[in-house]
């Protein structure tokens, strides 16, 4: 059997975060009642005209710069003509031959190896609406149309066919998502559809320069789905070739339930979109100083930040990668470190207990109730012995659930560590008196017996006694 190599390129649609739509003043908020965020312009009523939202262009430039693209000096909008009820004008305003940004790249790391993935272009376009069916599209007696999403700004980011595996495709999408999120131009929520991904996949025998026939895969709604769909499609195409047949150029859809890709339409059925410049929108001359202004306002991006976390905080590469995975998490971490300067300890808590609690509760970093300052304060109390490491975990959970200050939690739950030797000593005397057998065992050389006695002291002090001190005081008494 010949060795095959997959060639993968991704087309990613990202919904831009703006208050109003790309060509009108309607709102963009997700989850409103159907046909609530609409106006004559986004409904495409007779006579209306689009006016481009400057924020959209700014966001697109920002994304382009973050992806190392060249920003066009001259750009324009074109009409993509096709009929569908979710598209009120029966054409989509998009960009064809003069996109806002081109020739970019990003770096991925798969199995320890760095790889650069080229970005062909970034272009702006308007989103379409949504059809609501009873059951499936083929069996529904009628469909309802919701135009809330119509005209929500999108950028489409097209990669070069530089990926060779499902792992690389996922790594690319993860990195792309992180970069876009860092720039703040989109939430990139795959579940809400603000990040959508199609894949162009072909296979060829290793060593062959010519590309194989590609299939376009749609409807992958999660990173997991992307991985499964790409893996499946690569296998499918290899099988087709192994059977001596040819791969058909077509669009296929990923069926999550069946775990397979299914043919949607062949090349012959493909639309002729009849692109032409939209005469309603004047071409844009993008001022260089505006681009430079946007560049100057770019935040530190994931790669730079990860490197800085390693060098400035002496964090292991792994910690730095996890902590810089999203801008919010990295911000959280840094705010905490600023107030409590023990980077590795903060990292352990953020990646450990905080991540665990977020996972359990399904919360995102921006929604957690415990603030970086509160976490820093708690770590300080741990450091100065006010609470023990064990109690700290209890305190942390309470803080996570209630948003209360550590001091308040400790007070309410009476969790202050007892470090008063006199107080502990009394309990030690009590425990020694009550457990003669263990005392005898210890004195007979069973040093482990002290553990039981320590436990008894802790029990009587409800876990608040300073464990070090308990040990010390017990030993003094027992060794007498």
């Amino acid at each position, binding site marked *: 059997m010949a060795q095959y190599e997959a060639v993968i390129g991704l087309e990613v649609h990202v919904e831009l975060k703006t208050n109003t739509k790309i060509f009108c003043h309607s709102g963009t908020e997700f989850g409103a009642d159907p046909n609530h965020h609409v106006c004559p312009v986004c409904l495409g009523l007779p006579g209306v*005209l689009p006016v481009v939202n400057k924020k959209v262009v700014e966001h697109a430039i920002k994304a382009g710069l973050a992806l190392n693209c060249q920003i066009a000096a001259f750009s324009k909008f074109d009409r993509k003509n096709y009929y569908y009820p979710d598209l009120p004008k029966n054409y989509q305003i998009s960009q064809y031959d003069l996109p806002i940004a081109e020739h970019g790249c990003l770096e991925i790391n798969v199995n320890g190896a760095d790889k650069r993935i080229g970005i062909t272009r970034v272009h702006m376009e308007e989103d379409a609406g949504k059809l609501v069916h009873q059951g499936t599209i083929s069996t529904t007696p009628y469909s309802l149309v919701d135009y809330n999403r119509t005209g929500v700004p999108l950028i489409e980011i097209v990669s070069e066919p530089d990926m060779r595996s499902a792992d690389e495709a996922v790594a690319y999408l993860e990195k792309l998502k992180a970069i876009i999120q860092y720039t703040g131009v989109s939430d990139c929520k795959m579940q809400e559809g603000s990040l959508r991904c199609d894949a162009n996949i072909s296979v060829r025998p290793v060593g062959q320069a010519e590309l194989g026939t590609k299939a376009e895969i749609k409807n992958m709604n999660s990173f997991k789905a992307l991985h499964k769909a790409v893996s499946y499609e690569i296998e499918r195409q290899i099988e087709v070739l192994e059977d001596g047949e040819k791969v058909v150029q077509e669009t296929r859809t990923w069926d999550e339930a069946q775990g397979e890709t299914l043919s949607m339409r062949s090349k012959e059925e493909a639309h002729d979109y009849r692109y*032409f410049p939209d*005469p309603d929108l004047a071409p844009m001359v993008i001022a260089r100083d505006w681009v430079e202004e946007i560049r100057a306002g770019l935040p530190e991006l994931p790669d730079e930040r990860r490197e800085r976390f390693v060098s400035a905080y002496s964090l292991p590469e792994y910690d730095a990668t996890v902590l810089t995975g999203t801008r919010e998490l990295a911000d959280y971490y840094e705010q905490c470190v600023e107030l409590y300067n023990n980077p590795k300890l903060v990292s352990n808590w953020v990646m450990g207990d905080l991540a665990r609690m977020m996972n359990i509760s399904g919360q995102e970093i921006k929604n957690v109730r415990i603030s970086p300052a509160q976490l820093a304060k708690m770590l300080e109390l741990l450091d100065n012995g006010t609470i023990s490491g064990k109690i700290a975990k209890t305190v942390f959970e309470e803080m996570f659930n209630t948003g209360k200050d550590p001091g308040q939690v400790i007070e309410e739950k009476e969790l202050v560590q007892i470090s008063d030797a006199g107080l502990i000593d009394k309990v030690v005397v009590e425990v020694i008196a009550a457990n003669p057998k263990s005392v005898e065992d210890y004195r007979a050389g069973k040093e482990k017996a002290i553990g039981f006695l320590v436990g008894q002291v802790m029990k009587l002090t409800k876990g608040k006694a300073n464990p070090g001190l308990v040990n010390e005081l017990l030993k003094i008494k027992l060794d007498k």
Partner: protein
Amino acid sequence: MQLHYLTAHQLHDMLVSKQISAEELTRAVFDRIEQVEEKIRAYVTLTQERALNYARLVDKARLAGEALPLMAGIPVAIKDNMCTKGVRTTCASKILYNYIPPYNATVIERLNEARTVMVGKTNLDEFAMGSSCENSAFFTTCNPWDTNRVPGGSSGGSAAAVAAGETILALGSDTGGSIRQPASFCGVVGMKPTYGAVSRYGLVAYASSLDQIGPFARDVTDCAMLLNVICGHDPLDSTSVPYDVPDYTAFLTGDVKGVKIGVPREYMGEGIDPAVKEVIKKAIDVYTGLGVVVEETTLPHTEYALPAYYLIAPAEASSNLARYDGVRYGYRAKDAGDLVDMFMQTRSEGFGAEVKRRIMLGTYALSAGYYDAYYNKALKVRTLIKTDFDRAFEQFDLLLGPTAPVTSFKRGEKVDDPLQMYMVDICTLAVNLAGIPAISIPAGIVDNLPVGLQLIGRPFGEGDILRAAHAFEQNTDYHCKLPE
């Protein structure tokens, strides 16, 4: 006194001096409509109650001593392809026969601010595609000069309404001559402003890069006054140009001495009716007599304007008219089997033959494999045509010629020959491709039918055009001629 045949500036004086009320004026216009509309059929929709209410409000404000805009109380008719909130806007198409817009076009907002009174919505060739009003899905408007003849098009309803005294002023739209040609056929003043001078927001698009709204009036002064109301930048239209709109009436000085006018030989050559040519020659004599320097010039790519126009305009139209699919508003075919069937049946039944012809032409011109040969080449020709005008305006202040190669023709005469029909616009098309302003003014009568003189100006040179048009009017009386 026949109020309905006075000019807006005359009526303004009478309104201000309280000789008449706006209500009386409105009633006079509707009385006239009552009298002649059966023969002319200029209107698709009349808005009498609304008009009288508007007029009464103007009267009330005037009596209360409020400062009123110049045009307050003046009746204006609107071509039925401009959106009027709450008033049916059909584009004379079956596909929009029941469409009531929820918003006003910007020009309607401006007319409302100016406190003018809308009389109704006028007939047109369906979606402004045509040169005779015969492509209206509803009925054909007749030329008030001879009801067996067409009023021209596509803004035939507006032109006929002004000519017949069924309104004082009107708005039309001009994509390839649709204001100027009917103005010429009906013996009224009609102007296509510079592309970008008047907002297109709310004008139902035919060919977006060519469409422009403009005024119809009985004389040049009225035209300038209406232009003052409708011109100016609109943030809702990104192709509208921010510029300082002058008071166009200030240009009407009568003094044209030393102005240089070029006469493109292409507009006086083959295909132009000799009688029309004679009228234009006499007009040239009038100008020469006023101290204007008139010389022959050339616009060498003129013959390519028509083919370029019939690729660019249909290409844009094929996309602009895609939205009429029966899903959201307008006509929807009954008993369609499925979605695609509904799209196809709705559009097959909803559009007329000429609209379908242009949609097909445009779809073809934009198709993969043909785009460069047709659409793209037409864009290049368009650039050449613009360059022709730029060169001519290096030498001349204005260009002059006939508005149309012929006078009004008989109904039915050209309906079976689209190409003959298209030829009626050969003198006007290039102006739209170049995006420059032009006017048609009454310049003579041939066989009891009016002939229009076209004056073409530099971009945003409306003032210069109006000055020259006004000077001609001051020295002739063709604009006073009325149909019998």
